[in-house]
């Protein structure tokens, strides 16, 4: 782009932004997002500052609810961070998440008589397996096909079969005859996840937090620039230059297979928690956590510790939405859309910088 006799252009950064600067950088972009969203609130005749303060107040009042929202976002965000790091763009976590919900429900309806101590783990295991299977076509097309963008296309397209499968199951096979709405029957009591007493926080939070910390310790924590597991290093290499990795003898297929199995499995586990811990029955609509998870992973800098913070942030946004009374629901969606957009925009500026050069 040309302005007067200066030319503006993007240039790849030589020194990456790291450590505290990376965090500040992301926060700055979030603030930009909040300012832009604030302008939209203004256009709707709402004072954005008061709105933001209200959102914070609601969250402070409903901390347990925020934490309950935080659970699926953390699971999905963490699951996505790993393939993203290997440059496999799994944008279909939504589908894998729905499969998780379906598997949990199906397992519960198939074995309603099993005691909870067996049934609940079985639901998690089944969901992990089926969620992973739902993610495997992405691997096959990406690694074995000739088309680089296959991961994006295939993972996204796989959302829809999952969605329609859910619609069919809920409106037909599992439909609750007692309500007029299209809901499935309630999950049997022994399939419902126990909660921390007095709160909506269900117990899979412990499982997911434990996985998060393990993933951090084994794959992400670098000491002297070296991660603990070989897999962590292979993910780094594959994400930055798969060609060099393959020439060194790494298997691209193996690496992305592992990352996608984990990713699909984690999204499915999030789905188990949502249906068995929160909703207790299936509806025909999904919450869209799978899409928000993409922004969670990126805002967290694709790092488990960061993802904990960013999942909390997005959970707070969701709960804070309760404070936005008097605003059309679409504006609320626009609001989270803008935040996600700025999060993803910051990723671009992590890699590029704008330079200006004088031209004759």
């Amino acid at each position, binding site marked *: 782009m040309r302005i007067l006799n200066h030319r503006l252009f993007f240039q790849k950064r030589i*020194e990456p932004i790291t450590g505290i600067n990376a965090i500040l950088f992301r926060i700055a972009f979030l603030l930009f997002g909040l300012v832009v969203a604030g302008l939209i609130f203004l256009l709707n005749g709402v004072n954005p500052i008061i709105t933001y303060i209200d959102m914070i107040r609601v969250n402070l009042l409903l901390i347990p609810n925020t934490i309950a929202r935080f659970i699926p976002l953390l699971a999905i965000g963490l699951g996505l961070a790993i393939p993203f790091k290997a440059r496999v763009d799994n944008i279909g976590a939504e589908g894998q998440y729905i499969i998780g919900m379906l598997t949990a429900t199906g397992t519960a309806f198939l074995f309603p008589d099993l005691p909870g101590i067996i049934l609940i783990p079985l639901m998690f295991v089944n969901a992990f397996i089926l969620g992973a299977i739902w993610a495997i076509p992405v691997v096959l097309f990406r690694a074995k096909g000739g088309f680089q963008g296959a991961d994006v296309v295939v993972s996204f397209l796989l959302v829809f079969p999952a969605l329609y499968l859910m619609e069919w199951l809920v409106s037909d096979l599992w439909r609750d005859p007692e309500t007029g709405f299209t809901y499935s029957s309630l999950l049997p009591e022994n399939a419902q996840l126990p909660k921390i007493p007095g709160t909506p926080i269900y117990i899979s939070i412990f499982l997911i937090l434990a996985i998060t910390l393990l993933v951090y310790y084994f794959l992400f924590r670098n*000491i002297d620039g070296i991660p603990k597991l070989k897999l962590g290093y292979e993910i780094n290499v594959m994400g930055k230059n798969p060609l060099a990795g393959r020439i060194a003898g790494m298997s691209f297929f193996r690496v992305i297979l592992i990352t996608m199995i984990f990713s699909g499995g984690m999204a499915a586990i999030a789905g188990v928690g949502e249906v068995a811990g929160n909703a207790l029955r299936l509806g025909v609509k999904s919450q869209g956590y799978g899409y928000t998870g993409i922004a969670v992973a990126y805002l967290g800098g694709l790092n488990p510790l960061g993802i904990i913070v960013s999942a909390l942030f997005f959970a707070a946004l969701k709960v804070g939405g309760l404070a936005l009374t008097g605003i059309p629901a679409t504006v609320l969606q626009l609001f989270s859309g803008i935040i996600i957009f700025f999060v993803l925009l910051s990723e671009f500026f992590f890699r590029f910088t704008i330079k200006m050069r004088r031209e004759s």
Partner: protein
Amino acid sequence: MDSVLEMKDICKTFYGDGIVVKANDHVNFSLNKGEIHAILGENGAGKSTLVNGLFFPPDSGHIFINGVEVNLDNPLTAIKEYKLAIARQDLSKSLIERHTVAENILSFSEGFFLSLAEIERAIKKALQKFNLGDINPKAKVWKLSGGEKQRVEILKALITNPSILILDEPTAMLTPPEIERLFSLLKNLKEEGKSIIIITHHLEEAINLSDRITVLRHGEVVGVLDTQKLRKDYANEKEAIMHLASLMVGKEVLYDLHQDKVHTGTIVVELDDAVVNNDMGDAVVHGISLHLKTNQILGLAGISGNGQRELIEGLFRWRNLEKGRIKIRGQDVTNKPIKKVRELGVAYIPEDRRKALIFDLSVRDNLMLNSYQNSKSLIIDRSRIIPETEALIRRYNIKTTSPLSPIRSLSGGNRQKVVVAREFSLKQGKDLILIAENPTFGLDVGTTQFVREELLRKRAEGAAILLVSSDLTEIMSLCDEIAVIFKGKIMGIISRENATREMIGLMMGGAHQTEVLV
């Protein structure tokens, strides 16, 4: 004499990847009517950039054609109005591979209606007129050999009947007889009154062909010489060439490499009757057999594009062998995964750095690319790798602020040192098998010397080395045996003592060993 073309104060700077390169720094250049003017310089001296300034405007400077200042802001005006024509160096960019020869030349035709048949006729006529040999105008470009592509590119320039002809490294892909014919063609054109710029880094070519020589170094003109005078000033051609060479490379002089006498050892790699296809599915390696021995550097000479790349990729298991087999240390590894080949100690220095380096990862990450696998468990052995990588940085004198700086922040020479350090330390002594593909390509003189010395050191330690190079000097000064490849076949394998540059040159042009040995 009146000059048909003058370029004054040409500046062009490239910005990329955090590096600022002054490709042309206040360059002055003039071309007289009816002369052949050679532009001489090393890789990256700014030769191509200078002539490209005639087709895309440079950052600053003035261009005069026949004494009138002109504004050449797009290639079409340059070609059509000012009768300039250029045969570019990078054929993959200047020819459209999927199109036929005629379709590639079509873009220069005049008139509203395009007639392929007419173009084809014109091409046939032009090929005859310019004595450029036989090329089928209907052939797809990707099916042509490197030399044929080069001739198409030259024809593309000639067919517009230019008054100023620019040839950017026209001989890179040509065989000696083809070069001979091209040069006599250029001399004829000169007689007709055309002015010709030829870019080259071959000193002999410059001296034998041109009337004047402009020498560029690091984007600046270091000398404009009259060839006649140059010939007179020096007793023989050799001294004149030495003078040009010192101008071209500056004060840094290549000192002689010290090559120890060692006895060639046992065979470790046996490649038998290999047939390899290129990306288009056509066989480009036709039944090649090569044996690599310990304590030996085997050179693979040849004009690039004769199947070297496919052969290496087949040998390294990047590509499937259609036929034939590979044995490494007696183990059959035909079409086994790369990992297996790597474990048997095969190190690889590719010509393209992007195949070897991960620019966004740290120096340490890049140095441990092979050795991280050396522990049994799933866990990386940090306590071993940290001292190892630090030792490599010291030993190979890699200039970096920290082992954790990204490769992107390193200079070109230091980047290559990272590759060399890693690959050379894959295995020790006789366990190392090294495939090096133009390992000094694009390096400065100091690093080039360093890499060559390291190759010889590894050879003395017992490594089996296959050196693929299009640089004959490199091949002649390093190798024990030289295999010459032409159109996917080995023309012969000669030991260095028996080889002369001329013999290798002839074989690179398709002569068989039996024809050149007397």
